[in-house]
């Protein structure tokens, strides 16, 4: 088990290899479908002008994401009415939906760790090589276990996107994951896809 502290250095990222189990500690930000679309449209492609608190949120998240981690997660949060937020369940969501955006978002904010489940495609893998960054696979569905590693909810942005889609700023200790895409161009997902396709082809001719 390799311990990683956020924010991450280039050296720490380059040492990671596909298959390495890791434990992350420090501050990370959740972000999924609505957040990635918002980031790309408002600040990267600029097809939509900033409005409301967009610029303030941008300034607040920029330092957290520089060298940091974005976690594809839509948590169950208790204490919403009193704003005494506590993560009750917080496993990863399927990352492939962010494939159209992730590479650009990583480069723009210098995000070094993308955490989710199910893996991502060639655009993200290319960004992992240039930024450099890594894709860390959390255990899908292990929501209570992961929520226990969330020591503190430091704040939330864009709650108007809904609880699952908001950007939650969290402090974690020993958050467990496995490196499945590294900064050297290797992807466990490509490997498993290729192997299982060969097996499928064998079964289809029976």
């Amino acid at each position, binding site marked *: 088990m390799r311990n990683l502290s956020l924010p991450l250095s280039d050296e720490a990222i380059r040492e990671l290899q596909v298959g390495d189990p890791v434990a992350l500690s420090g501050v990370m930000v959740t972000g999924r479908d609505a957040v990635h679309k918002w980031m790309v449209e408002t600040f990267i492609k600029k097809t939509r002008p900033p409005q409301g608190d967009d610029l303030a949120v941008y300034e607040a998240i920029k330092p957290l994401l520089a060298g940091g981690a974005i976690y594809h997660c839509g948590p169950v949060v208790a204490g919403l009415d009193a704003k005494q937020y506590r993560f*009750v369940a917080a496993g990863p969501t399927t990352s492939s939906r962010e494939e159209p955006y992730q590479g650009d978002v990583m480069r723009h904010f210098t995000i070094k760790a993308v955490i989710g489940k199910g893996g991502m495609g060639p655009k993200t893998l290319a960004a992992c090589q240039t930024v450099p960054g890594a894709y860390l696979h959390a255990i899908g569905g292990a929501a*209570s276990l992961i929520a226990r590693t969330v020591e503190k909810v430091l704040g939330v942005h864009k709650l108007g996107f809904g609880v699952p889609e908001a950007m939650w700023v969290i402090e974690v200790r020993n958050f467990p994951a496995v490196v499945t895409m590294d900064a050297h161009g290797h992807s466990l997902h490509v490997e498993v896809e290729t192997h299982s*396709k060969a097996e499928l082809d064998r079964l289809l001719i029976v």
Partner: protein
Amino acid sequence: MPDLIEPLVELIRRTSTDLPPDVEQALTAACEREAAGSAARGALEAILQNVELSRRNSTPICQDTGTPIFYVRHPAGWSTRRLREQIRAAVAEATQRSYLRPNAVDALTEKNSGNNLGEAFPTIHFEEIEGDELIVDLMLKGGGCENVGAQYALPNSTLGAGRDLGGVRKVALDAVHKAQGQGCAPGILGVAIGGDRGAAYYASKETLFRKLEDTHPDPQLAALETRLTEEANQLGIGPMGFGGQTTVLGVKMASMHRLPASFFVTVSYMCWAHRRRRMVVRDDAVIYD
């Protein structure tokens, strides 16, 4: 009609925070089959720890508490309108108590309703049955696994799948391959043969209420369920798509009548966190399975 809101909240709590024993046993057996120290073994160990922790603390097993899908079988004379009102009230209350994540998003405005209530949300199916028991089956089906469901129209020349059980086998294996780890493998497949497109998805989900160890009464389908389970596991996708011995925990099939022109094979993929529970109301007693 009795007030069933509290008993229904309890049904939701049990469904969200615990796994049925057959599913947990299958996961334990799968864990033992993976090599010590492998990523697959590590994933299953974390999964089993998580189930234990969720049960103990009454917290959702998975943060994606999914679409609540209710199958309600009621005696003659019950008001389905009132049952629907009570189910909706229970769902809103369970959301307030953090047993469910607010998951109902308006497809046009993108606004989350905040209480899991919306147009056709939750999903509720009613059926009148003989006798005097009310039976409520609940399944919580998350988005990751729902997204990898698939429907095929046979014949399918790309896969060399004809209009027979051999063709059904081929497209079902293709669906497992396409899903990779995205549906939170190891999953459970519900496969419906025939029907129209809508009825077939309904039936493919209903088969997922069957216990993993049960055997299909039709010997041909029983044999195909076993064969598909073995062959899907030969794909080597493994837990979470990390590679490994167990890609699916089981396959459950249903067959329906179809149009002469249509031969649909409909696959619903259920993640390892197969949250399903039953509540029976008999006289004044409420019994959970």
